[in-house]
């Protein structure tokens, strides 16, 4: 299996093009953390259980993403800065179908 390329715009507006492995059972939140594109403690706070919205991102590309499950939907209903294209990065597993995905991190809740 090969790595895929993902474009991630951080909270300062800087866009990073990164390689993400498809064979490590990683999700998008973990990829963002592994490249330290947001300071530790400001992303993935709940560890990836869809229980906080610290990994909220806006999906910019037309990539076909897995449908939202109930947990994610419920969390986004309570989250702040939510837009129509909001997703929780921790609920998006890295697969080959995601090659070319472009996302932007939502602002940090204060």
């Amino acid at each position, binding site marked *: 299996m090969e790595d895929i390329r993902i474009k991630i715009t951080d909270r300062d507006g800087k866009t990073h093009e990164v390689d993400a492995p498809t064979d490590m059972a990683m999700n998008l939140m973990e990829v963002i953390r592994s490249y330290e594109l947001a*300071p*530790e*403690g*400001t992303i993935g*706070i*709940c*560890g990836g*259980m869809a*229980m*906080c919205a610290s990994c909220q991102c806006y999906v910019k590309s037309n990539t076909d993403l897995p449908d939202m499950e109930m947990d994610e939907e*419920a969390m986004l*209903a*309570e989250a*702040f*800065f*939510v837009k129509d294209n909001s997703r929780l990065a921790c609920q998006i597993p890295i697969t080959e179908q995601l090659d070319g995905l472009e996302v932007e991190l939502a602002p940090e*809740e*204060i």
Partner: protein
Amino acid sequence: MIKTDILIIGAGPTGLFAVFEAGLLKLKCHLIDALPQPGGQLSELYPKKPIYDIPGFPEVKAGELVDNLMEQIKSFQPGFTLGEKAQDIEKQDDGSFIVTTDKGTKHHAPIIAIAGGLGSFVPRKPPIKSLEDFEDRGVQYMIKDPEQFRNKSVVIAGGGDSALDWSIYLADIASEVILVHRRNEFRGALESVDRVKELKDMGKIKLITPAEVVDVTGDEHLKSVSIRKNNNPEEDFEIETDYFIPLFGLSPKLGPIADWGLEIEKNAIKVDNTLDYQTNIPGIYAIGDVNTYPGKLKLILCGFHEATLMCQSAFQKIHPDKRYVMKYTTVGGVTGFDGSKKEAPKSVVKAID
């Protein structure tokens, strides 16, 4: 003033296990936690979820792990200050510390162990401009005394259990209850959702969905909130109200501990991982998810290890002249402060005729 040997800030799994390791060394512990129950995130966020990496437990639910830890430390009679947040710390001339909570409870101990996890759980505040200007002047993030809303009008925002439950409760007390939620669907116990619908049909709760409170106005006290329907600014309208209560759950924040003069890195407290998880202030340790060091992993099992080494170091600080070597519980048993003793059954020596 509460006096103890080790004052543990945070009653999550790491803090609870520290009580056990301290107890083996005859050191008494007292715990402070902002939540009303022990267990930290395990109890607050995911009590029903399974954990698979606790050594010796192929699978254990987070809530059960907390119950087990409470049972394990019971005979060491830990004290608890729950529902209060550690706020201030004062170093005494003898090197000990006095920690005061946000409710004024004072604790005195020679050793402080911060096991604060991700921080103390505080209400999530929606990003509304000037919301903070009206805090305690009409804007509240939690309800302590429902009677204060008697015959007042209340706007509640949120779509989870607490928003539903408080809307139901206040429907009989307040003159008017308006529940604003961003979706048409509510996430909560089925009875609560059904009850809100009944109260809505009876005209006791007014529902505004899908909508969001986008502004608050008033002078000395809150006067009105501005509500945006369907995400469309052109539909914004004002509602006069006495109170606005946003209920969006809790999120952890490091809080006042960040101002205690401890070295902070990556939203965590830097500790000496080569020895005893002590911070830059002698006598203050940080264990579990709240600390950081090269190679740190935020795992419960790592917190248990850190708690164990911290207690050994604390013992030496409290009793610099006492000799001690670590003893296996299988050999020494566990003698509680309540007089109970657990030990391995002795083998018998008896001839077989």
